[in-house]
């Protein structure tokens, strides 16, 4: 399995850059995943709003939320979500929030 490293942190990710051990996820892990995997240099308040919502939903239901739920709860427009996370909600936002890769065509 590959690793990503930065700020003295070393994280194990799968072949597509999704975090292997969910217990390793924290603010720094999110920053590292964002930078190394998604090329997002700095996470803004709006990024965090999306990340925290996805993370909370996942912890409760063990599933990624549908993008409808993300928009409704963050009150962001759909297009803005894609601007925040150019790889989209799955390979962008869910990955940074430390979720495993969702099943299906993603």
């Amino acid at each position, binding site marked *: 399995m590959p690793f990503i490293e930065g700020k003295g942190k070393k994280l194990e990710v799968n072949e597509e850059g999704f975090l292997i051990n969910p217990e390793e996820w924290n603010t720094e892990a999110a920053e590292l995943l964002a930078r190394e995997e998604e090329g997002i240099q700095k996470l803004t308040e709006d990024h965090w709003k999306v990340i925290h919502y996805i993370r909370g939903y996942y912890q409760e239901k063990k599933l990624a939320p549908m993008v409808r739920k993300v928009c409704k709860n963050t009150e962001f427009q759909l297009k803005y979500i894609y601007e925040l996370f150019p790889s989209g909600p799955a*390979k962008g936002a869910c990955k940074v929030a430390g979720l495993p890769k969702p099943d299906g*065509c993603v």
Partner: protein
Amino acid sequence: MNEEKKYQKDFFEDRIENIKAEDIRKALYVFHRKLSNQSAAYLNSCLHCGLCADSCHYYLSTGEIPSIPAYKLSLIEKIFKKHFTLLGKRAPGWVKAKDLTKDLLPEWIDSLFGRCTLCGRCSLNCSVGLNIAYLIRAARGALASVGLVPPGLQSTINTAILKGNSMALPREDWIETVEWLAEELRAEVNDPQAEIPLDRKGARLLYTVNPREPMFFPLSIVAVAKIFYAAGESWTLSSEDYDVTNYGFHSGDDNVAALISGRLVRSMEKLGTQDLVLAECGHGFNSNRWEAPEWLAKKYGFDVKSIIQIVADYIQKGRLKLDPSRNPEPVTLQDPCHLVRLGGIVEEQRYILKRAVARFIEMNPNREKNFCCGGGGGQLAMPRFAKRRLEAGKIKADQIKETEAKVVASPCHNCIDQLLELNKHFDLRVKIKTVAEIVADALVI
């Protein structure tokens, strides 16, 4: 779920390690049952001429011998000869026949699941016309019968079986999403009466979606709804049994594939709709249009069409008014293998794009000779082969670059996802859209 995924992975390695003689017997039995006389003849016919090598995006991108289609086929061929031919049984060394043993399984899995997208391009080059993808799928089915489908692909199948769709969308969230998208549509066409019908009995068309759309990329549904609105179509979505994907196709497990495709038949019967219309999805088209009636041993009482055929028909009949200048950037087209080479929908998407964009550029090669994007055959669901999948995508990336197009249209959500990754990996700087999205942008309402 990460723990679960780790567990699945460990479990898979253990499963290979602990496979029993009776599992092997079962796999061989299933493989044998899947072979028709014709496919048995195929397995005796490979001339090992090697012409297929240059047809395969895996081989072309890396030059690795195990990626040559004839090599992949030879793995199946040796087993076939040993177990099912007289010469192979009596003089295995002479005809290179081999027992299916535990130590062969890792290579079977790596090769048949990890070096093939079931795209069928090798058959075009084959000097004797062998249907290699068909045989690889049959061998995958043998592995599937004893639990040897790589994790990710298997978990997607499990999700589809247990949750009713391949991404575990809860029914109420799907309904809420449709209502939300209907609002988007009303804003888009500026008509408070515009709607996205759900469970409308007796509508002419039942439209199905890839769960990836409502889950993460719902604008493609709005685009189709806008086209239906402009054409004045009688259509509906279904609140259940609406998933166009069928990952049982990729695993080669016909029983599972039948169960999943059977759901769309159930929806059609429940709603009494006339035609089943499939979203832009390559394997979903091949599965539901061509294979499913075989899997289900059932004659359908309705037509199965791709949305591409429907849109082409609207344009031809003058039901849509399009302004190509609204799509000013040059557009090229990715031909999904299962829709085009293996599905027979070849000209419709070209007919549409030529009328919806200012400049259309073909990739080279194209149509039935087009290369796979690299994401087919369930590859996107198997992270263990992700590196190889991206490498094999180089052929497609080079094709796209050569066109100098700024937009790649693809009538397949699976291709789109692979193309999104290629875009990033090979720095292509293109936009990737469904055909319906491009048409919706050109619509004059």
